[in-house]
């Protein structure tokens, strides 16, 4: 049986990458003590370095959720707690809120970085196959695989239709009924893609996809993969134990 293609980092098997991420992410989310949080940052930096996480990939993943987290990090020190640290005119920065905000920011950064380091190099269909091997129901795995085939097509289709609508002189403002145009564009895109989606799925079934006797996609973890997983699981659980001891 062929070995997993070597990706960046010491774990090639995507199943073990997912398991390592689950342990680390849930472990990180339980940390509140400043010393445990500091160790979490050290562990994340080591993980990002060892798995070769490009800073641009991390920056891209911080853009969307960063808005919610930034809002909380700015508001919590001003709204929560009793101990006033600094007064800025009518506003007071409070110690308890500041501590909570720092905890949120660090946990968020470390979990996003760990997820990017472990999962970003894995091709998405391979990720779905790994999830299936870990017990994801076949129906959901099929939906995920088909969805991946539709995303780019839908995005381009919707973009083309919006440009076409604008070129035809369709109204563009909120108060001028733009929502109805978007609704109709979405509905006609759904209709157009639905027939194609059914054809693709039936072709997959005819080629043997999902048949009971079809061989499932196999994964093979090397001893090095298992060792790296053991190290990461030990590090994640070690942080949790430390949190409870401190």
């Amino acid at each position, binding site marked *: 049986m062929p070995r997993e293609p070597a990706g960046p980092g010491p774990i090639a098997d995507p199943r073990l990458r997912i398991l390592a991420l689950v342990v680390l992410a849930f472990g990180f989310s339980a940390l509140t003590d400043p010393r445990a949080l500091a160790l979490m940052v050290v562990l994340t930096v080591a993980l990002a370095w060892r798995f070769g996480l490009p800073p641009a990939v991390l920056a891209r993943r911080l853009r969307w959720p960063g808005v919610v987290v930034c809002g909380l990090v700015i508001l919590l020190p001003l709204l929560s707690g009793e101990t006033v640290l600094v007064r800025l005119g009518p506003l007071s920065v409070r110690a308890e809120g500041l501590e909570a905000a720092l905890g949120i920011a660090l*946990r968020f*950064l470390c979990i996003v970085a760990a997820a990017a380091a472990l999962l970003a190099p894995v091709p*998405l269909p391979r990720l779905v196959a790994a999830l299936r091997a870990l017990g994801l129901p076949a129906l959901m795995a099929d939906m*995920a695989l088909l*969805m991946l085939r539709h995303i780019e097509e839908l995005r381009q289709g919707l973009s083309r239709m919006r440009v076409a609508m604008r070129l035809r002189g369709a109204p563009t403002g909120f108060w001028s009924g733009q929502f109805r145009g978007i609704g*109709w564009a979405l509905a006609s895109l759904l209709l157009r893609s639905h027939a194609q*989606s059914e054809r693709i799925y039936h072709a997959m079934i005819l080629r043997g996809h999902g048949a009971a006797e079809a061989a499932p996609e196999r994964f093979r973890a090397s001893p090095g993969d298992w060792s790296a997983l053991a190290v990461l699981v030990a590090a994640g659980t070690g942080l949790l134990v430390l949190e409870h001891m401190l």
Partner: protein
Amino acid sequence: MHIPDGILPLSLTVAGLAAAAGVTAVSLWRIKARPDPRADVPRAALMTAVFFVASLVHIPVPPTSVHLMLSGLMGMLLGWFAMPAILIGLFFQAVMFGHGGLTTLGVNGVIFGLPALAAFGFLCLVRGQGGPACHAVTAFAAGAGAVMLAVALFTAVLLAGLPAHLDAATERRAILALALAHLPLAVVEGLVVAAVLGFLRRVSPELLRAA
């Protein structure tokens, strides 16, 4: 309305995961009870892609812009397929863009999935009643109602899970601010859902009946 990683405590994320797994298990059980459980997989996959892409479509609502949530539409077009579809969409949004989170996948699944199933239940209750105007009002109510239910769940989870104490007055102000901020989104989403369903009812009613 996606809750990112790092905000909620472990107990809440695990509870969210258990709740999402429970609702998904019930949904899959209902789907498997059908004569051909795989028949609607293409439609569910397509709607999952729409749910995914919708988060990239921004609609200007002065003074800012909003993106569609489409939980209500998912529920009305997919029925029991809505919950697994939403979980898949949220997982890929988290993995590809960092939108939402992996530890909060269950919580976000409940925040988006329960309103979808509520919209499905609402549609089952009023199905076949009234004319086109009544259908449009029903679709608007289900689309907008799903957004407001999701906002209520989001606010409740966020306030329960914040690792900091907020006094009662601040909590009330936060709830009011979040509800008011999402009101335009609810209106826009209700109108878009009504337009989508109105179009499908005229052009391809079998798509609506399938749910």
